[in-house]
């Protein structure tokens, strides 16, 4: 059994009533972390090896009129995107001075945008929204975003999207209890697979492992669900690892050591390890952290330092946690 030790806690605002932190994203270099929340501000943090560990470098606060639900970096580090409840997505481009500046605003969603993500090749960019739709955008040569496909496959709010780590395959999780996988057929994006009852409740989040052969989903039913893929991704999961009192949760799969971090509505962060041989996998809890004073909205492993985990919480804090095994 390991443990999760606090490295640092950066509090956004101690007194504000609307300082919930919703999401964070690591730059691939691991030196920069972006966070967003209810205060309509995207913060770019510099991550250092010594104290203070996290330092707020930039505040991007003029782009959105409502809470920002999600942020992500492109894989080449050139773009930063923020998705907001004001139904727009803003793209920031890294200037020559290293600062991110708003260069594009993507409009079209009819309701709150819940998630955004760049494809592994950075050619595509996907967004999902409460309007039940998933939009695929394509970057052209001039770094402009054109709509590639608009799908409305879900019957409820689309809560989360994530790309497969190597292929152009997108996963979406929804309020309608289902998850869907999409692929590009050369002209349009089409549903590749539909898993109707992935969870007994809203599916909140999902993550692939580094190889892309396994994924985990978490849902309102407080279940961490592991899915394994055959040559083509296909349902074959083992239902395992029940845990308690987490209505809302988030998940991140460490690409180096194969550990899964889960945060949830029970104000705790847990780390699980997948054990057992193929086809017989089980999920074992190996560490837990209970220092948050609110729901944990997002957890994210450092892209290089495999024991460093960042969290964003309703208590308005961004924390770095160190896993001790």
């Amino acid at each position, binding site marked *: 059994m390991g443990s999760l030790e606090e490295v640092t806690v950066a509090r956004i*605002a101690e007194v504000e009533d609307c300082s919930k932190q919703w999401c964070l994203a690591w730059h691939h270099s691991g030196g920069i972390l972006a966070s967003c929340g209810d205060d309509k501000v995207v913060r770019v943090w510099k991550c250092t090896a010594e104290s203070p560990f996290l330092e707020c470098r930039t*505040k991007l*606060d*003029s782009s959105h009129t409502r809470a920002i639900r999600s942020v992500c970096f492109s894989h080449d580090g050139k773009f930063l995107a923020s998705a907001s409840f004001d139904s727009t997505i803003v793209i920031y481009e890294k200037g020559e001075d290293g600062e991110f500046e708003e260069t594009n605003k993507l*409009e079209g969603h009819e*309701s709150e945008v819940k998630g955004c993500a760049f494809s592994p090749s950075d050619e595509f960019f996907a967004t999902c929204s409460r309007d039940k739709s998933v939009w695929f955008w394509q970057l052209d040569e001039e770094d402009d975003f054109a709509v590639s496909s608009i799908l409305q496959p879900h019957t409820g709010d689309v809560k989360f999207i994530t790309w497969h780590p190597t292929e152009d395959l997108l996963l979406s999780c929804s309020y309608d209890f289902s998850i869907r996988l999409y692929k590009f057929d050369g002209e349009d994006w089409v549903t590749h697979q539909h898993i109707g009852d992935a969870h007994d409740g809203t599916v909140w989040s999902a993550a692939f492992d580094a190889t892309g052969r396994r994924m985990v989903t978490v849902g309102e039913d407080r279940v961490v669900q592991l899915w394994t893929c055959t040559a083509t991704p296909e349902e074959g999961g083992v239902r395992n690892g029940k845990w308690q009192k987490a209505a809302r949760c988030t998940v991140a799969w460490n690409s180096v050591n194969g550990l899964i971090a889960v945060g949830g509505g029970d104000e705790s962060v847990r780390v699980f390890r997948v054990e057992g041989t193929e086809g017989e996998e089980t999920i074992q809890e190996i560490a837990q952290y209970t220092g948050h004073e609110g729901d944990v909205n997002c957890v994210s492993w450092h892209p290089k330092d495999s024991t460093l985990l960042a969290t964003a919480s309703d208590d308005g804090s961004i924390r770095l946690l160190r896993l001790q095994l």
Partner: protein
Amino acid sequence: MLGSATIDQAGEREARENDPAALNDSRLENQIYTFANTLEKFEKQLKQAQNGQTVEEAENMHGGAVWWMMAVAVALIGRDNARLYTRVTDRERDDYEVQMFIHCTLDIVEDKLSKANELYLGLLTSNHKHKSYGFVTNTGVKFILVLSLANTTLKDTDMRAHFKRLHLLYTNCLSNPFYELGKPLKSRALDEACNELFRSTPADMSGGFSGVVRLSNVNDYIAPSQACVIPLKPTLEQPAATEDEQLVSTHSKKPKTDKPVVKVSISLADCLACAGCVTSAETVLIEEQSVQRAIEGLRAAKLGVVTVSASSLASICTARGWTMEEGARRVTEFFRAKGARVVLDASVVQSLALRECWQEMRERIEQREKGGAHRPLLVSACPGFACYAEKSHGALLMPLMSRTRSSQGVAGVLVKEYLPRLIAASSNGPSLSPADIYHVAVMPCFDRKLEASRPENTAADGSRHVDCVLGTAELNGALSAFLEGREEEESMEVDESPELARVEEALPEEITGFMRGALLGLDGNLSGGYVEYGIDRWSAAKGGAVRVEETKAASNLDVIRVFSTRPGEEEERPFVAARVYGFRNIQNMVRKLKTGKKELEYDLVEVMACPSGCANGGGQIRAATTQERNRVTEGVERLYSNLPRQPTTVPSIDEFRASIEDEKMRMDLKDVGATVNANLAW
């Protein structure tokens, strides 16, 4: 905050029931299920398991309609838990589980009852297969509705409406003098209502609305939308002033403003234009404009007129393997039997719209050539696009939209404004007001129903230009019933007054050619042919010396450039027409216009919300698979393109158009913008 709206809610009046002081001896209906039934069910399950069906396969097998069964069972239970009424779908009738499920639900009703503050109890419980909703009357009679667990299309508002209806039926039953309180109910009205509930949802109907309209589906699970389109002045919140750069941001409370609460009334028309918040507007539309209503209207009116679009006819003919000629004759036969006198061909009417549209285009080109700004002309014929443009990008798109009515709109003006004058002008003609004429339009698109209910499509006396719009699939269904002779034939006495018979003769023969099976097509596809007409006119202006370059920029996005080859004009800017179909392409066009990074070089843009245009519109007869659908769409287009072309100048049409101009009717063909601009002033 935008402000606050006070919507008057009609106080929910509970129908009165007489509460019996003493209920008769109540018998819990013992339902005996034979062992055989259970066995049968197990066998079924076993078979399914052996087949190794996944949920998805089963879903496909059942097909949309069956799987999305609206309700599985309805139960009415008395205050003392005696079953008053139970009805289960045929599919589950011998299913022990449903009955058990209803019993289980009862406990939860008791539980909820103590906390309830209204009659509707909401979702009660669910198991792996079913879920139940509850409603309780003031006298303690419980209504339980069981749905399939997979049914997520019905929301609270729908459920409330269904319960209200059941409640009303129940009170009707109570007023039966022969009914003894507390005894099981027998009511045909109730049975029918239940059967209706069991039938597939009207979802397959609302599925016919274009993606644009559907995108903000009424079935969203959270009730109000962020912003109602209704103007709640003072308009939008000012963007928050940028805070000083600081690590810890501060939050200052905005000073309170004391503004009087303005009462705003929201009409159905407003909601139709928005669909942003929860309304069952689409359902209302479907009920208001159904085959049933169309037939009733045609029968009751002094003069019944039907306009049939070529897309609809081609879709029916493709599905039934008819030639267009045969189709036209059969459809005419059908409508004649239902009381219509005249059936018009919408594509002949369309040529009027094309001319109007080109006039606008020419004005814009002239303006540009005089040094004015380049303003693309967006064809507004597609109601899905028009609705989207108004709703989402009013200020940006409205000034660019063509003000010409769609073919349906032109047909409406023709029938409701022109026809009465024509009849009055003919000697001894009876005087008809627009309201005396009932006008049905058969269209490939359910959004046309929306279009028909827009205020600018109303005649002077308040009657609609088009009283009822039918989707192709709706007409096809009625046609099937008619051809099979399933309907009890009520012989319709057609008013054979010679004055009305002359109506037909007074109209240009091309327009009434439909009734004789003599159809005429236009250049271009079924989506109106605006692009082809534009190219043709431009070429004519250049004396035919043109070079046409057509590029397929993306799927469903065609760009056609027409270069003049006349000496001295080779370097001139070409005329650029584009077909922008489908939501994806519309989005990209809007982005171009909005960001202004790249100029939208198009002059004339034929915009359609459906990816393959009207041929595969939402109201057309649906094929099951995507491949099948593509094949059908091609077939539909082929049928149309094989029709004889309309000559460029039809003397009678020209004459007709001139007569319209004479009567100062021209503006009427161009009224689309009138209320749009008013709307913008919001």
